[in-house]
């Protein structure tokens, strides 16, 4: 690298390539903030607060009309105008200086210059890449305070409730010194607490939680119940994970109780099937299907003539779903069974996923497979993908340890620019090239050997695995050899903090899933850092990855556990040709030329390229999936906007009353005499909202149904996405009219008394219970691509033959 790398970087920056928003223009500001420091140190807390107020007044006086002082870098071109910020340089300098001082007084931590650079980066609405252990939380808090001082409302979006609460409480003194009101929301917060928290300047909240609040707000029946104000500024922690990896996970609000079908029977039938004879699974682990013999066997077991006859589709669905659950979803890899419930494992984080479940039937099928009580289920009332949630904020900024690698996607999906910050102390970690083995067994043997030899020196080791089962298996082997090790995975996350605190101690061996790979800070020399120097002499933390993760970012996150804040450290990945990333995504058998050494090691360069390519294929597949979801979702989002717009008018205005009075004038007049105007208007509102929400829920179900088979249109030379848009639009055009007509019909039969609408008698009862969850990608849906590829291949073969 060296100078040529620097040259490439500046050329890329000049060309405005993604991921190159520089910090050069900001450095003088940080220097000036440093010059302000001695003067501010002299002030009392009250005077500091007065200085913040002065800054606030100055900004208000200038108003939004003030153009940016500095000629803004190209980074701003075409990005969302976060910089609607009426900031000039002086205000930025003052804010940085005040923020640093407040943090110093409140936490005893003096913000580094690079942290202030990060704050400035966030304030101009970019995604900032910062190395581990550089203090992202403080950066986020200071930027949030900065936006708040401008009079904007900020949501600091974290990945889970624990972090939201921890950060809010940790940063509270800083916010207080800066005169900013801050709060947090977690899953346990009550309705009143939520309202109060969201009314503050800065709210720390998990992404999913704010999403669910958005969904619930969309179904409120009274304006006074809304908890969320209009979205304004979002500062996203672990931005790549939230914006890219989780972007297409739909958050779902479900309600009502649909009758459960008999999953147990399907599970029993499927249990009797034999792999290879009755069913076949694809090597990519995505699909499984019955063979002809399997169909016959199922028909025999169920006692039916033809499984594909009309009216058999529910039965057939159950069998298919049960088969999928039984063959392709693996216990301790894809899910755990805990407290009699199925808990999904988040593959990207290696920990239990909060509130996630599979789409309805599949989740029940897994429960049936494990012999658990089949849980409640309902109809999807509304859903929202994380990408649309974030897209609703006029200003978005983010921070993470791995952003540049996804800069292009951030630009494509969010119009966000990305830049990286140099670490405070240069990173001296050594990233060794991968060591590749011919089989899992020889790789594991080499791993144990490496751990054993390194452990003898006393150097701490972190072993990262892909799934829970593997981490436990390695833990068992190590313990059998008499090596003490801590195993950290989704199954036992209660001791997480303790295990991480000790992971850098002399002689520590920690085996973990990706759980330890993101967001954890491993201090060398144990929790108090007393052996720091000794561990440094031993070479710092050794990070060993067992097989590559599905994306390079996850690899980098794991590596990032070593070499924090200038500490030494080493990282190495041990891969084998049996790894899932290779068996699932490599398209050919490995090159034959490879020479396998006695211990199973392969040093052949062609094989190494082959392994790397498999990972790129995996990343490409993920990205294509994201893009496809995004395209299909676009139309639905526009339609939802339109319905919500109408809904808002109904909620805040007397739109429903006007409409129903027009549609049923006689009935309206009659009711008006009976119950009076205000009661009737309220009843009309309830009726119309009920029918509008029901119509939307039905529309969602219809489009989900359509989505599954739309790829078949490619066979008739149609673009499936265009066809999907045309069909959904056709269904949508009538939606609002249908809802209006239904509300009018309901009015005819409604029981409205002086005390209002009797929903039960009027047959417009809303679901008694609603619950929220996230849906894992429907395992069957991402099939556009393979299908088109197959067709494409045929075409090309045809071309070759012709």
């Amino acid at each position, binding site marked *: 690298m060296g100078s040529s790398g620097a040259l490439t970087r500046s050329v890329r920056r000049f060309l405005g390539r993604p991921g190159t928003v520089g910090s050069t223009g900001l450095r003088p500001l940080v220097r000036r903030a440093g010059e302000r420091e001695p003067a501010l140190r002299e002030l009392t807390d009250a005077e500091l607060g007065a200085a913040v107020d002065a800054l606030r007044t100055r900004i208000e006086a200038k108003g939004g009309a003030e153009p940016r002082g500095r000629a803004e870098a190209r980074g701003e071109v075409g990005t969302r105008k976060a910089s609607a910020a009426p900031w000039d340089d002086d205000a930025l300098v003052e804010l940085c200086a005040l923020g640093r001082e407040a943090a110093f007084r409140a936490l005893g931590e003096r913000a580094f210059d690079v942290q202030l650079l990060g704050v400035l980066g966030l304030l101009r609405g970019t995604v900032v890449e910062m190395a581990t252990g550089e203090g992202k939380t403080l950066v986020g808090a200071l930027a949030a305070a900065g936006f708040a001082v401008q009079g904007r409302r900020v949501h600091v979006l974290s990945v889970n409730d624990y972090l939201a609460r921890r950060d809010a409480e940790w940063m509270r003194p800083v916010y207080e010194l800066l005169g900013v009101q801050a709060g947090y929301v977690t899953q346990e917060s009550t309705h009143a607490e939520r309202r109060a928290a969201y009314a503050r300047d800065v709210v720390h909240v998990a992404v999913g939680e704010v999403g669910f609040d958005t969904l619930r707000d969309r179904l409120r029946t009274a304006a006074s119940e809304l908890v969320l104000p209009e979205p304004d500024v979002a500062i996203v922690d672990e931005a790549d994970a939230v914006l890219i990896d989780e972007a297409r996970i739909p958050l779902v609000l479900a309600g009502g109780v649909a009758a459960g079908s008999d999953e147990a029977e399907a599970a029993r039938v499927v249990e009797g099937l034999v792999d290879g004879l009755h069913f076949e699974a694809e090597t990519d682990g995505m699909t499984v299907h019955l063979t002809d013999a399997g169909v016959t066997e199922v028909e025999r077991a169920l006692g039916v003539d033809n499984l594909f006859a009309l009216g058999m589709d529910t039965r057939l669905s159950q069998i298919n779903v049960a088969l999928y659950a039984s063959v392709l979803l693996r216990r301790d890899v894809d899910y755990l069974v805990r407290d009699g419930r199925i808990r999904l494992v988040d593959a990207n984080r290696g920990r239990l996923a909060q509130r996630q479940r599979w789409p309805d039937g599949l989740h029940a099928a897994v429960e049936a497979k494990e012999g658990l009580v089949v849980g409640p289920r309902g109809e999807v009332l509304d859903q929202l993908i994380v990408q649309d949630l974030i897209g609703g904020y006029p200003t978005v900024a983010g921070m993470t340890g791995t952003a540049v690698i996804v800069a292009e996607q951030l630009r494509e999906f969010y119009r966000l620019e990305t830049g990286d910050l140099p670490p405070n102390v240069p990173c001296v970690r050594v990233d060794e090239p991968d060591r590749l083995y011919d089989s899992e067994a020889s790789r594991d043997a080499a791993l144990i050997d490496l751990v054993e030899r390194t452990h003898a020196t006393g150097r701490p080791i972190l072993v990262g695995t892909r799934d829970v089962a593997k981490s436990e298996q390695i833990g068992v082997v190590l313990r059998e050899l008499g090596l003490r090790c801590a195993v950290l995975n989704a199954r036992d996350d209660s001791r997480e903090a303790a295990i991480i605190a000790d992971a850098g101690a002399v002689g520590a061996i920690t085996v973990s899933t990706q759980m330890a790979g993101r967001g954890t800070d491993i201090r060398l020399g144990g929790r108090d850092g007393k052996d720091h120097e000794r561990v440094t002499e031993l070479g710092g933390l050794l990070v060993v990855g067992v097989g590559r993760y599905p994306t390079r970012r996850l690899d980098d996150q794991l590596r990032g556990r070593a070499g924090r804040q200038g500490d030494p450290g080493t990282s190495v990945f041990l891969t084998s040709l049996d790894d899932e990333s290779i068996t699932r995504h490599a398209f050919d058998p490995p090159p034959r030329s490879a020479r396998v050494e006695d211990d199973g090691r392969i040093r052949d360069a062609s094989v190494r390229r082959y392994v790397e390519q498999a990972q790129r294929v995996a990343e490409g597949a993920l990205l294509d999936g994201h893009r496809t979801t995004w395209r299909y979702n676009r139309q639905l989002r526009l339609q939802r906007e339109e319905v919500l717009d109408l809904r808002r008018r109904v909620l805040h205005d007397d739109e429903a009353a006007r409409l129903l009075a027009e549609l049923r004038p006689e009935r309206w007049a009659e009711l008006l005499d009976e119950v009076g105007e205000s009661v009737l208007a309220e009843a009309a509102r309830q009726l119309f909202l009920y029918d509008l929400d029901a119509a939307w829920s039905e529309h969602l179900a219809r489009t989900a149904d359509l989505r599954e088979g739309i790829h078949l249109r490619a066979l008739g030379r149609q673009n499936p996405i265009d066809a999907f848009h045309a069909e959904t639009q056709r269904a949508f055009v009538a939606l609002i009219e249908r809802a209006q007509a239904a509300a009018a019909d309901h009015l005819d039969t409604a029981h409205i008394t002086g005390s209002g609408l009797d929903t039960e008698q009027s047959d417009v009862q809303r679901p008694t219970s609603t619950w929220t969850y996230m849906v894992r990608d429907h395992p069957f849906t991402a099939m556009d691509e393979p299908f088109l590829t197959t067709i494409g291949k*045929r075409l090309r073969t045809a071309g070759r033959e012709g």
Partner: protein
Amino acid sequence: MLTAFARAFRTPDLRKKLLFTLAIIVLFRIGSHIPVPGVSFEMVRSCVEDSNRNSLFGLVNMFSGGALLQLTIFALGIMPYITASIILQLLTVVIPRLEALKKEGQSGTAKITQYTRYLTIALSILQSTALIATARSGALFSSARSATCDPQGIVPDDSLFRVIVMVAVMTAGTSTIMWLGELITDRGIGNGMSILMFVSVAAGFPAALWTIKEQGTIGGGWVPFFTVIAIGLVMVGLVVFVEQAQRRIPVQYAKRMIGRRAYGGTSTYIPLKVNQAGIIPVIFASSLLYIPALIAQFSGGKSDWAVWIERHFVKGDHPLYMITYFLLIVFFAFFYVAITFNPEEVADNMKKYGGFIPGIRAGRPTAEYLNYILTRITWPGSLYLGMIALVPSIALVLFNANQNFPFGGTSILIIVGVGLETVKQIESQLQQRNYEGFLR
């Protein structure tokens, strides 16, 4: 349909896209008229006028919008790019490294697109050199050696420098076309390459129509002129009708369980087009029929069999030619459908993802059913293709028109195909703004 166009124009960003596309088309047409430096424009002109359009380059010339024979800077048209894309697509199947790239998703595809561009440049260097050589040798205007046309005079100065300049200009022209096409795809309406092809083909219409008027005798040429236009319109209508026609085979996906399923299956189907093969069979058949004529020409055209070919297979008005042409098209239609639509593969794919045709078992029975439907629907499709393709030959007999009869099968199929595709895209964009579409 016109009102829908007006609606599209009222939508600001759609209007911008339409105007942008039109502007690019204008640029493209202007470039098709600027001669390459070093070419004697007068000489080209008189040669083109004299030349019998029934030359071997007829089809290629049509694809370049007549620019080929004019030796303009866009003489090569979009053919090099199309050829390059086809070659790259084939190579993707053959070369593992390319296939690997393709599998990496967007970033890999972007690289392949880049390779396609390089190959386009290479091909256009090759083709422009060949074009200049054939122009000088006189082969470009095969039977055009007359008093006014002297092929040697087309490129008066054939010094190396001159030739290099000409090749460079034509290559640059092709790259520009490639860029224009990509601009349309990115910022305009429709697929850039298809649109430019559409423009090239349509550009030949007015001149060809005028020739009919000039050569016609009845009513001062106006009678055949309007008759041809009327036939053309009827044919366009017919082609639009058939191209839209499809048989919908309902499919259900049995993998989700929802309470209400009243609407299930109504919009999930396999659309089997009547003309599933598109334009390919016509192109295959006419290319194949060129071969005997080519051989005859190279052999000198003196021997008995060459004379026989000359009589039966060179001009399209002989019944033997027509029948052979027709049968070849029907054959290729079936051949192509059999290759591109593999019922077993489709059935297999459906089975894998839980799809089935109601009442029919997944797997082999589904494949057999699809095959049965496909065969039945391809019969009318192939007969239709054959008849459309024969129109110029019949016109040749009726009006004694030349073979570049404007409403030839190939050109109408291209025009309608691209037109429908583009209109559908506009429609889809309009729908995003909740307007009703063009095609009800």
